């Protein structure tokens, strides 16, 4: 039995320690917001937070996640109102939407570590996330907007 915390809840998994966290989240727990895109840490569709860090769940084994705190897109905020989520909605970033769980999870870590990122900072932090629909111009815009929203929330 492998125990970890997912979105604040303790969960026990009767799975192989070799199993990638992605499949435990999706198939065992039924949280399908985290996406399978490439399986080899190339596209970022499966990004979750592991003890606060953005990791590719498709290559993160359960043995590594054991005892840690996992946050998925479903647990990023209570009401779909993390500044990144709000900014994504405001700018209507998604097209098909498939990659955006991962995009938002990556952006959330960027916004925490660097509350006022430049275009270059955004490029550096977000280049690991592929969007085949090509929503990149809007992702950039949304991260700047989220940064402003985050700033306002503080005041």
């Amino acid at each position: 039995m492998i125990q970890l915390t997912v979105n604040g809840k303790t969960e026990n998994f009767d799975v192989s320690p070799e199993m990638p966290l992605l499949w435990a989240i999706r198939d065992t727990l039924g949280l399908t917001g985290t996406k399978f895109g490439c399986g080899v840490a190339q596209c970022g569709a499966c990004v979750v937070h592991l003890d606060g860090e953005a990791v590719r769940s498709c290559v993160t084994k359960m043995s590594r996640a054991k005892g840690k705190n996992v946050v998925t897109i479903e647990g990023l905020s209570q009401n779909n109102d993390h500044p990144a989520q709000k900014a994504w909605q405001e700018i209507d970033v998604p097209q098909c939407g498939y990659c955006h769980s991962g995009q938002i999870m990556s952006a959330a870590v960027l916004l925490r570590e660097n509350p006022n990122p430049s275009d270059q900072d955004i490029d550096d932090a977000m280049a690991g996330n592929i969007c085949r629909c090509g929503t990149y111009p809007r992702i950039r815009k949304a991260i700047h907007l989220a940064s402003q929203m985050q700033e306002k929330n503080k005041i």
Partner: protein
Amino acid sequence: MTKNDNIDNTRRNFLKLTGLGGAALCLGFYFPASGAPVVVRPSELSDSEIELCPWIIINPSGKVTIVNHRAEMGQGSFQSVPQIVAEELEVDMNDINVIFAIGNEKKYGGQITGGSSTIRSSYKRLLKLSAAAREMLITAASTKWNVSVSDCYAESGHVIHKPSGKKLHYGELAEAASKLEAPKEPKLKKISEYKLIRKPLRRIDTPLKTNGKLVFGLDTRIPGMLFASVERDPRYFGKVKNFDATAALKVPGVKRVFKVKMGYYEHIREGVAVVANSTWAALEGRKQLKVEWDSSGFKHWSTPEIFDTQNNLLKAEEGMILKTQGNPTEVLSKANKKLDVVYQTPYQSHVAMEPINCIAHHKGDSIEIWGPIQAPGWVQDYVSKQFEIDKEKVIVNMTFLGGGFGRKAMNDYPYEAVAVSKEIGGPVQVVWTREDDATLGPFRPGMSYRCEGTISNGKIDALKFRMAGQNNGHWSGAPKDKPNWSTSEGFLKPYYESIKNVSFADVLFETSIPTSFWRSVYASTNGFAYESFIDEMAHEAGKDPLDFRREHLQEDRCQKVIDKMQEVSGWKNRKKNEGYGVAITECFNSTVGQVVKVSKNPDGGIKIDKVWAVMDCGWYVNPDIIHAQVEGSIVMGLGAATTHQITFKENIVEQHNFYDYPMPRINEIPSIEVYIIDNEEDAGGVGEPALPPFAPALTNAIFDLTGKRIRTLPFSLGTV
């Protein structure tokens, strides 16, 4: 790609209130104003609901449900179809539910979401049906109140009696309205009267795409379903010679391993399926599988041979003529000077972010399918025929698609899922890996174009285009003694007015590599060849490329696109170290012009500084969706031009995943400005037409800056 299904079936499609036996089947996701979506399983409407027409369902409480009959793969049908209906029906977008239709082409007309056809093939009918429904509701109210119809109007889901101010909501009127004869010619609003159409309304499905709640095909779960992964012949059409499942069956969770077929039209592919109780177990089991293939009986191609063969054919053969006027061959033979060059574009995979997947449940005498599907009607037809079950008993449920780009209009993966389900006797989800998705096709075909032309008095005297590349239509049985009907796709029609001698021919070329539609289809490759060659002609004539096009495209809409490009890009004021390129193409009834600005990178290579895009798609619904589609098309076009290609060795794809089939990333994207031409022409497509002009506009800009003409894609911006 699809026939226009804009038939006037107002009367036929209006249902009378009949107690609703056999009425609408709906699967979808209700979007209550309050938040979380509720999955609605296929079921008949409840007795109290009234289907006023196939797109409009009204609940006694007044709740209006609008049906989206097309696939949502990012292009926005889930927003734009309801936005049209809500406008003429007079309901607020915030108050409606939207659901997907199941596949039912008798009821909805064509449902293939391809050819950028959703709006252009159905908007006139949707406007008319919705306006008729509104008039019926108003008539029902006026009858109830015993007042004049002209004193009543509809607003926000209510009918209001102007003099008295009394009002009733649609739920109180729907039953009476449904008993009325539908008006044949309901009064439609003028464009200037629109409150929703032509407004950049936010998409109703966006919030579900920011919290992980939206259910794509791969996220769909059916009670009791298993998961499967299939090892298929990497050369596509080989047979399973033998396989050893011993190790695979030892993987915990693996339940069954067996040979399975997958139909691609009438061509059968084979594989070995590993069925398990989780996706991961199926994938792990497949890794342990040993399969020996018999890939004899068809030729195995390698990329150099493909393009050498195409080139040789273009040297030797005239091909099958699709279009001709004047006599370009004769004019070219007498010309003192002519250009004769070859353009080349690679094979491409679609690699939508959501890998191919499908759930099927073969129940013996019926089949139910759930998945990311662009063409539910095609799947119904094909599966019904292949598995010998009545079409009405093949239920195809559309989920949201994580991208489609033409790949998910194919029937092969639903067929395979049904075959696996039939074998196990229960529901199963077949999941393709990224590698399966990238390497197993069908692909955009690799193409070669021989372009010949000559100039006389500063204008094009003759153009002769021949193409050699696989015809996607051959896979579905198109005759091989007829040219590919898309040979001239992308080429602007007004050129035929100014160029007296012009011809397009298709030189037959076939391989055993499966091909299919890829966003904007042949326009995506034709456009590169033809619009680059027009640029070569402009250079030959010593003319400015934009002016040269203006002279040759003497048609009002083209002139407006050209004027707009000149105005917004500052074309005439460009500086010495800046390269400007232009290209204009037309496909799916929309014309798009793009200007690309490039400069030399201080570290070497070329930098794209800016792209200006001008879209004339006629009548349109949501300008923000158009902006998004144009931006996305440019990014996709950039990848296809500069970063990825599929190559083959003995039919086997040499790329595997995003590490060797690289997509553009956020740090590689130019700044993009989009402009829409406002007019009242018939609606054209939006999802695809902005892709073809990008590659030629870029390479024309590079020529402008460096004098180097790029005729083969992809090329590297870093090493130009």
